[in-house]
């Protein structure tokens, strides 16, 4: 007997709602990121000088930071959801959530450092 996944998906939890919020944000921010960096840019990719000029625009910088935060949060919430399917105990779930939060902070921190090196 086959399982109807359309009936099983997406039980609304706080984490799920955050995934929706960051996902909707990503639809907009990712479109902007791809179009600006790969479709508008000459040759499909910006050379070093063009990346520096691009990121020195304060509006672009804010949008790219928002993109970095949204994509990291969305990705790690997704990883958490997959691990939760393993039926983890409360303690392991807490450790997992804490670990993923730190990975998220480090990821965003790393991205900010890269941006800082580019625009300084």
């Amino acid at each position, binding site marked *: 007997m*086959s*399982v*109807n*996944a*359309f*009936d*099983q*998906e*997406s*039980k*609304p939890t706080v984490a*799920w709602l955050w995934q*929706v919020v960051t*996902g*909707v944000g*990503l*639809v907009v921010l*990712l479109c902007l990121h*791809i179009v600006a960096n*790969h*479709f508008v840019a000459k*040759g*499909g*990719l*910006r*050379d*070093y*000088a063009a*990346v520096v000029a691009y990121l020195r625009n304060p509006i672009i910088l804010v949008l790219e930071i928002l993109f970095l935060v949204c*994509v*990291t949060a969305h*990705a790690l919430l*997704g*990883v958490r959801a*997959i691990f939760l*399917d*393993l*039926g983890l105990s409360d303690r392991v779930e807490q450790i997992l959530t804490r670990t993923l939060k730190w990975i998220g902070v480090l*990821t965003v921190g*790393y*991205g900010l*450092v*890269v941006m800082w*090196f*580019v625009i300084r």
Partner: protein
Amino acid sequence: MSTLNYSKTKQAARWFDVRRRKAGMWAYALNRITGIGLVVYLYLHLGVLSMLIRGQSAWDSFVALARSPFYLALDVILLAGILIHGLNGLRLAFTGLGFSVGAQKALFIILMVIGAIILLVAALKIFQV
């Protein structure tokens, strides 16, 4: 204990096995497979961006390499993953919030067709570069 762990793992991996499953399970599995792929890509992408720290020559050499047909083909595969995950994710968000719950299968098919059209147009644009 090992039996319990095995059964939990087996149960957790059930979504991966789409044999004899309906469209809903295909949608669910596709979303997860593309999601895992995109997480791997995200960290590869962030790793590649470290070349910006190494300076102009490192970045510009990478850009020259990334404009080769092999890398452009990888871009098309990446875009396919983004479109499948993004459009299917929008369907999940709509239906999870209680909208269009009865039309999920139709919505999935329509969004995948839209995704295929966007991918085709984008692939043509990518290889025009």
